[in-house]
């Protein structure tokens, strides 16, 4: 390849390529789409957490004005009505049994949304209530009512072929990981601390609730315009359910109004496809916010951890038993559970480890992927306990962590990717930025926390780059723009490699009939994996172009350089436009490049090696109102090791958002159930952070050693910085007040009660 000069576009905080369409309101989301002849759907949902469907009769609803169809679970005999990425345990509409309050039991399709909503009231549904389990304790009790009784059907995820449900219980998957001899190590440890932490059920609250439009064509093909992070996973699900080839299914993804994991895997696509098939017309289903609360959530968890440390503060053993509540359907919960637990030991060197985790069904909204993918639940426990260990050993929490950090190049687990970052640099930068070594004001406390998260492995990304006759460029890749800025990053990478102006690069929206395979937009993988595919595809195009230039200029390819859409050698330069005309003998034709990133399976414990380790440190300074228990985060520092920032400002924006989202489950957010009923499925009862809740000082910094496997040394970003927030804040609170919180969110009431209990202990 030609000599590369300094980077021009990569590393610059260029404006987002989609900013203008978004500030002008022109950007289209799934719920903005209109198809000719489009009908509107609404769902009837179970009022009970667990019930047998005695009767779901749509006769009266079918007769209502404007109604085109009423569909129930009993009407789905013509397709395979079950779906799910881990187990195919979720029916399109409840069949015989409803397993959580809010589960769809019937659908109405009508000429307009109002008619569909009105007809829901006319469906005659009779339920026979069954005993429900809505907490981990209830679900795990001996003889507990079972959420699922049938033998589970395997889903499509290859590395979950080892799913281990425990028949006759509510345990749908178990994960075990062990190395060394943890029992002996704990017995010989100078300090063993053992405690249990809980993490709440929380809701993504993407500003855009899930939406999808489906239409079948005259050739029997299906198109779904969907708010999904995984068009290709959705395609696989639909192909199986409807028995049609992948090539006849087209999933088109417009802009997503936020995803955060809540739009991974099939959600509404199966039901809209059914309704479009039944009516023979395009059908739209756009959920309300209340319905989004009843679609997916983060898995709540109870985590018991035992840490064993030597007298000098070295970690010798970690034992962990984690129970995650995956709700009524597994979704991707089993994978969340095993992946979250796998990195329970965080960025630390621990010789003796035993990790056990269980994914547990309950009669609640299904638990799935949510930014951090199971790690926040574990890190909340482990990072809190590490501070307790420091206190008991009279060690500084930063020093204790530093002494235990894995080093660059060190093995985390046999067969998995060696550590690819310099963790001590991240920790040092965070400590410095929060002024760790200077005393805090008397009414302030400071705390730190760290985390390490694996990305997804193995995974595949493919990309196509087209250089057109006028030297403009189209990038075809299926990573989904959900706000994170992926389209801008892909455009920057292509513009950099091809030496064309950024505004000459167009990144197509994902469309499985046009843009090539990409496994998923999750796991902070897009910049690294899709980005590398785009980089390779652009280099492929450049290579073709340079061969044309070499012939034209009569010099070797290695002697050529590119800048401003021109190839030059010595004093002679020729424009891409001229070279393309020469190549095709006319003013038409284009060069097409291909990029494929497919690391494949490995001997790593989860079946594939992580492409990179996502690494972040959080440091918080807090104050507390002793009268009310209200905690205020006054200052927050986030440091993430991202290898290289393709777009520095977008990285900053990702981490600012991650920290504030983390403050949500740390201080405010929790889905509350009573008797199996979700009480606060709306923004009046469910409090997400507002502008005024952002810490008065908030700093997001980055470690950039260009040591990642992505383009130009990049690694993933975006999830990591959310994870340390809860333990950093709780550690700060503990150092300020001596009160150790074990339950999130840190509501004023919980903190006030803990402060009162401490006062009573201190002053009996």
């Amino acid at each position, binding site marked *: 390849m030609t000599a590369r000069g300094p980077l021009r576009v990569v590393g610059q*905080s260029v*404006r*987002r390529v*989609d*900013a*203008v*369409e*978004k*500030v*002008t*309101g*022109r*950007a*289209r*989301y799934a*719920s*903005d789409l209109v198809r000719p002849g489009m009908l509107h759907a609404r769902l009837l949902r179970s009022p009970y957490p667990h019930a047998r469907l005695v009767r779901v009769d749509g006769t009266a609803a079918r007769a209502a004005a404007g109604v085109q169809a009423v569909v129930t679970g009993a009407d789905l005999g013509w397709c395979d009505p079950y779906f799910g990425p881990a187990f195919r345990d979720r029916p399109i509409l409840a069949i015989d049994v409803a397993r959580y309050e809010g589960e769809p039991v019937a659908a109405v399709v009508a000429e307009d949304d109002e008619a569909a909503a009105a007809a829901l009231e006319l469906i005659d549904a009779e339920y026979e209530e069954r005993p429900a389990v809505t907490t981990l304790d209830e679900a795990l009790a001996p003889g507990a009512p079972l959420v699922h009784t049938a033998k589970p059907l395997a889903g499509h995820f290859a590395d979950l072929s080892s799913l281990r449900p425990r028949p006759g219980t509510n345990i749908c998957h178990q994960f075990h990981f062990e190395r060394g001899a943890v029992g002996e190590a704990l017995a010989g440890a100078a300090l063993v601390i053992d405690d249990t932490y809980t993490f709440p059920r929380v809701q*993504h*609250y*993407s*500003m*855009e*609730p899930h939406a999808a439009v489906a239409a079948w064509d005259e050739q029997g093909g299906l198109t779904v315009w969907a708010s999904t992070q995984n068009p290709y996973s959705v395609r696989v699900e639909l192909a199986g359910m409807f028995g049609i080839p992948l090539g006849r299914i087209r999933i088109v993804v417009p*802009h*997503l*109004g*936020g*995803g*955060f994991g809540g739009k991974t895997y099939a959600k509404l696509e199966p039901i809209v496809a059914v309704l479009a098939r039944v009516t023979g017309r395009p059908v739209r289903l*756009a959920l*309300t*916010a*209340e319905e989004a609360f009843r679609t997916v959530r983060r898995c709540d968890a109870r985590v018991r951890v035992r840490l064993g440390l030597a007298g000098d503060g070295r970690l010798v053993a970690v034992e962990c038993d984690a129970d995650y509540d995956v709700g009524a359907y597994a979704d991707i919960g089993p994978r969340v559970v095993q992946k979250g637990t796998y990195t329970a030991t965080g960025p630390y060197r621990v010789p003796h480890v035993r990790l056990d985790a269980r994914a547990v069904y309950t009669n609640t909204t299904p638990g799935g992927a949510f930014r951090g993918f199971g790690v926040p639940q574990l890190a909340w426990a482990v990072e809190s306990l590490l501070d307790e260990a420091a206190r008991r050993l009279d060690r500084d929490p930063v020093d204790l962590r530093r002494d235990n950090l894995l080093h660059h190049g060190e093995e985390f687990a046999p067969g998995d990717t060696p550590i690819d970052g310099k963790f001590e640099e991240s920790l040092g930068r965070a400590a410095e930025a929060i002024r760790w070594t200077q005393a805090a004001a008397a009414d302030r406390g400071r705390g730190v926390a760290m985390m390490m998260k694996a990305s997804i492995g193995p995974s595949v990304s493919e990309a196509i780059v087209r250089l057109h006759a006028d030297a403009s460029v189209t990038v075809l890749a299926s990573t989904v723009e*959900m*706000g*994170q*800025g992926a389209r801008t990053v892909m455009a920057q990478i292509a513009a950099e490699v091809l030496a064309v102006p950024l505004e000459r690069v167009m990144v197509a929206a994902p469309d499985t009939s046009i843009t090539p395979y990409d496994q998923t937009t999750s796991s902070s993988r897009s910049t690294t994996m899709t980005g590398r595919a785009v980089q390779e595809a652009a280099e492929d195009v450049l290579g073709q172009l340079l061969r044309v230039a070499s012939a034209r200029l009569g010099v070797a390819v290695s002697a050529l350089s590119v800048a401003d859409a021109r190839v030059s050698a010595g004093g002679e330069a020729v424009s891409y436009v001229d070279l393309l005309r020469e190549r095709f003998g006319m003013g038409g034709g284009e060069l097409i490049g291909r990029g494929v990133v497919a690391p494949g399976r490995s001997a790593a414990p989860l079946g594939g090696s992580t492409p990179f380790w996502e690494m972040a440190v959080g440091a918080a300074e807090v104050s507390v109102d002793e009268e009310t228990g209200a905690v205020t985060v006054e200052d927050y520092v986030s440091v993430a090791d991202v290898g290289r920032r393709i777009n520095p*400002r*977008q990285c*900053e*924006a990702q981490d*600012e*958002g*991650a*920290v*504030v*989202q983390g403050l949500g489950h740390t201080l405010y957010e929790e889905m509350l159930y009573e008797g199996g009923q979700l009480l606060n499925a*709306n*923004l*009046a009862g469910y409090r*997400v*952070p*507002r*502008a*005024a809740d*952002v810490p008065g000082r*908030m700093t997001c910094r980055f470690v950039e050693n260009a040591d990642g496997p992505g383009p130009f040394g990049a690694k993933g970003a975006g999830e990591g910085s959310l994870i340390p927030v809860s333990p950093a804040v709780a550690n700060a609170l503990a150092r300020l007040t001596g009160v150790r919180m074990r339950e999130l969110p840190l509501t004023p009431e919980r903190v006030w009660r803990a402060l009162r209990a401490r006062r009573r202990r201190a002053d009996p």
Partner: protein
Amino acid sequence: MLTPSSSDLAFTVNGRAVALRVPAHALLLDLLRDRLGLTGAKRSCDMQVCGACTVLVDGEPVSACTYLAVEVDGRDVLTVEGLADGEVLDPVQAAFVDHGAVQCGFCTPGMVLTARALLAERPAPSREDVLHYLRGSLCRCTGYVKIVEAILGCGTGRP
């Protein structure tokens, strides 16, 4: 079932005169999105908390998700589609672009209009003014930092 009563409305949207007959219970958000094709205002919380549906009625920010369409009779509605002058962005729009205050974009139209209302009321808002004004405008992506910076950047007092 009773036929809902309807009303004839005459009002302006983004400077254009509109005459329509709407049911008495119709919401402004549905009128804008479904009948006028102005999908910039977004539906999210449906309860006047999140601000994604914010539009200006006679310059005042309202939540179109809970605002009866009949109430705009004789009034002037401004949606995000009416802000730019051709391809020239409104200063608030330009500031959101320049400060990187946009991520998924779903809250952006409401945020931009809310900011416009604030700046009309207070041309040089303080940070506290901005935070106060954004109580009814939620964003799940940005952590608000760059939104606040963008709005302050539009004010005559630079941040």
